[in-house]
């Protein structure tokens, strides 16, 4: 893989790739500062624009946007006490008090610096792990691929926010929806309802746009909960001092980056958990805890280093096993498929340049967003005060026209609306959209590996190979664990 590092870097730096990176970063920053909208939404809306691009530019645009969202969200968390995304929630604890103390510039400098270097650490760890992943992938055959995908879904359900039973149902629904269309193994048309439109299955782009952009915009329109009326009136003094802060508190910064990377490796956990754990780590490892919550820069560093480092970690399962490490990367895998690149264990072997482009884009996006973010912090924060009655209709328009623009098929617009409604209902009734989307992406891989295993080895193929059997046992353990813990807790309660 590394022998291609320089040629891929040259391609990465050649025009117009830097322009796409910058455009992605700007889009990500804007969506990051808008409360209620974030990475999945901006990626879903950008997807249709990548159709006319080559796969490299498409990846650069999308990773640029994904990488910029967390810092965009931290701007509003620090300046107006409103986390732009859930993964910036813990940043408000010390970021906003710093703003009230007149240290907004210092807080933003620290957030930007911790984000940039946190992402670099995540990318370095990713780069170190990938060659090992190659060996793991070579030990994989169809049963292992099937069991790995199944285990990934189980982990996502286990770690889903809220109800695990519903997350499993959502994952099952996603897998069932992935069976719509032509079954490649047998040539059978399934669930097409007699229409040509469904022969290719449910299209990912309209589904993703509906589930995230439309559902979220409708949710914002009806709730109006994310409108902020706070005005920014902060001095940007002390930015440089803030930029140097992670190096003054290097232990906190490094530990948070490592925590973020590890959280990222576990599929489906996401930046919110990394952000909280990074903050908790900053508190628990500090001798003087008295200033936390009152404007301690260590709180900002701990929270922000972790949520940016998680992207590097999230690329590990995405690249090695084709299991998205986060929702953003589920959308990214969808983009790869649209560009003819099949995610899965073979991706690392057949297209190592894709992995390199992702690493470069991740690092560069964070550097660019760090600079752009610091320079435009006040302006970005003022975007979040734009009324939802203006933002949400515009998002809806971009969602519907974007889905139509990809192939010019009106069926895509209806699909977007149907999935928008489904997404809204899932938000409302606590069903995990993450589980559904990841299942929708993994469905074809699961079915293909199931058919291949059954044809070559039969059912016994899943249990007579050690890796596959191990994954099966882990999956069963994951699925049983919460229910056993629940029984244990109830027994303790009744005893007490």
């Amino acid at each position, binding site marked *: 893989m590394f022998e291609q590092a320089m040629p891929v870097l040259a391609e990465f730096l050649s025009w117009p790739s830097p322009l796409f990176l910058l455009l992605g970063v700007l889009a990500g920053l804007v969506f990051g500062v808008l409360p209620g909208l974030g990475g999945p939404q901006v990626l879903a809306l950008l997807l249709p624009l990548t159709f006319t691009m080559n796969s490299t530019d498409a990846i650069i645009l999308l990773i640029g946007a994904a990488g910029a969202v967390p810092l965009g969200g931290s701007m509003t968390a620090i300046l107006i006490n409103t986390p732009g995304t859930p993964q910036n929630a813990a940043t408000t604890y010390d970021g906003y008090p710093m703003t009230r103390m007149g240290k907004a510039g210092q807080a933003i400098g620290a957030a930007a610096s911790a984000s940039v270097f946190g992402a670099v650490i995540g990318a370095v760890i990713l780069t170190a792990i990938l060659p090992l992943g190659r060996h793991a992938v070579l030990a994989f055959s169809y049963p292992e691929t099937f069991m790995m995908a199944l285990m990934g879904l189980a982990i996502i359900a286990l770690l889903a*926010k809220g109800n695990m*039973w519903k997350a499993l149902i959502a994952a*099952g629904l996603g897998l*069932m929806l992935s069976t719509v269309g032509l079954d490649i193994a047998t040539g*059978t048309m399934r669930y097409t309802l007699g229409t040509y439109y469904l022969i290719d299955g449910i299209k990912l782009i309209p589904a993703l746009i509906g589930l995230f952009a439309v559902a979220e915009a409708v*949710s914002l329109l009806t709730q109006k909960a994310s409108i902020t009326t706070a005005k920014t009136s902060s001095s940007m003094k002390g930015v440089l001092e803030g930029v140097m802060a992670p190096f003054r508190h290097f232990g906190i910064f490094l530990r948070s980056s490592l925590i973020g990377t590890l959280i990222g490796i576990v599929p489906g956990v996401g930046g919110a958990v990394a952000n909280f754990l990074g903050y908790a780590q900053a508190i628990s490892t500090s001798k003087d805890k008295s200033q936390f919550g009152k404007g301690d820069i260590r709180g900002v560093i701990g929270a922000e280093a972790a949520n940016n480092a998680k992207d590097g970690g999230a690329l590990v399962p995405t690249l090695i096993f084709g299991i998205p490490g986060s929702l953003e990367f589920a959308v990214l895998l969808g983009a790869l498929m649209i560009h003819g690149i099949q995610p899965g264990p073979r991706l690392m072997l057949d297209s190592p340049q894709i992995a390199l482009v992702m690493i470069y884009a991740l690092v560069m996006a964070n550097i660019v967003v760090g600079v752009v973010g610091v320079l435009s912090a006040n302006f970005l924060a003022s975007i979040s005060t734009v009324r939802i*009655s203006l933002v949400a*209709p515009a998002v809806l328009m971009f969602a519907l026209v974007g889905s*139509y623009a990809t192939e010019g098929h009106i069926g895509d617009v209806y699909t977007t609306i149907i999935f928008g409604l489904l997404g809204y209902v899932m938000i409302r009734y606590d069903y995990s959209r993450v589980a559904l989307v990841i299942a929708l992406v993994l469905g074809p891989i699961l*079915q293909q590996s199931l058919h291949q295993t059954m044809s070559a080895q039969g059912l016994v193929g899943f249990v007579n190979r050690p890796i596959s059997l191990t994954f099966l046992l882990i999956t069963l353990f994951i699925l049983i664990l919460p229910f056993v813990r629940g029984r244990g807790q109830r027994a303790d309660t009744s005893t007490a």
Partner: protein
Amino acid sequence: MWLTGRALFSLLIALLMAYMVVASFDYGFRARVFPATLGSLIFFMALLQFLGDAFPAVQKKLPFLGAKGIALEGSAASHAPKDTQVRAEHERKPSWLPIYGIFAALVAFAVLLHFTSFLVAVPAFLFLFAWLVAKERLIPALGLAAGVTIFMYLIFRVILGSQF
């Protein structure tokens, strides 16, 4: 029995799964093995969820329906200062009527887009939607419609060269 929206949604999933399982028997063995097996499993899971949602007594007898994922257990939320509140994704549940209105408007937009051009459909829909549904004032709604249409024209027609 509490036939709430939550329960109805669970029932809807169960019915969809039942339909997909029954329909799968029209396909050959290899083509149906995955959807029939998985669909049956999800049907029973969704049915139990429906029973739990509709009958609180059932929920108590099937405690696994309420089992939580472990993602946020033991997280640093406990370290949060008490005066800091992070907004939940949904703090209040609005009534369904405006939701139906929004989705009906989106379907109307799709029809308009199908029979005209996006250069007609977008400004017309956006102005009416922002003004009537989102309750925006007249002038900002007009500005939004004009601004978004020009931006879309530049992106889709000029830069991407889309013809629709």
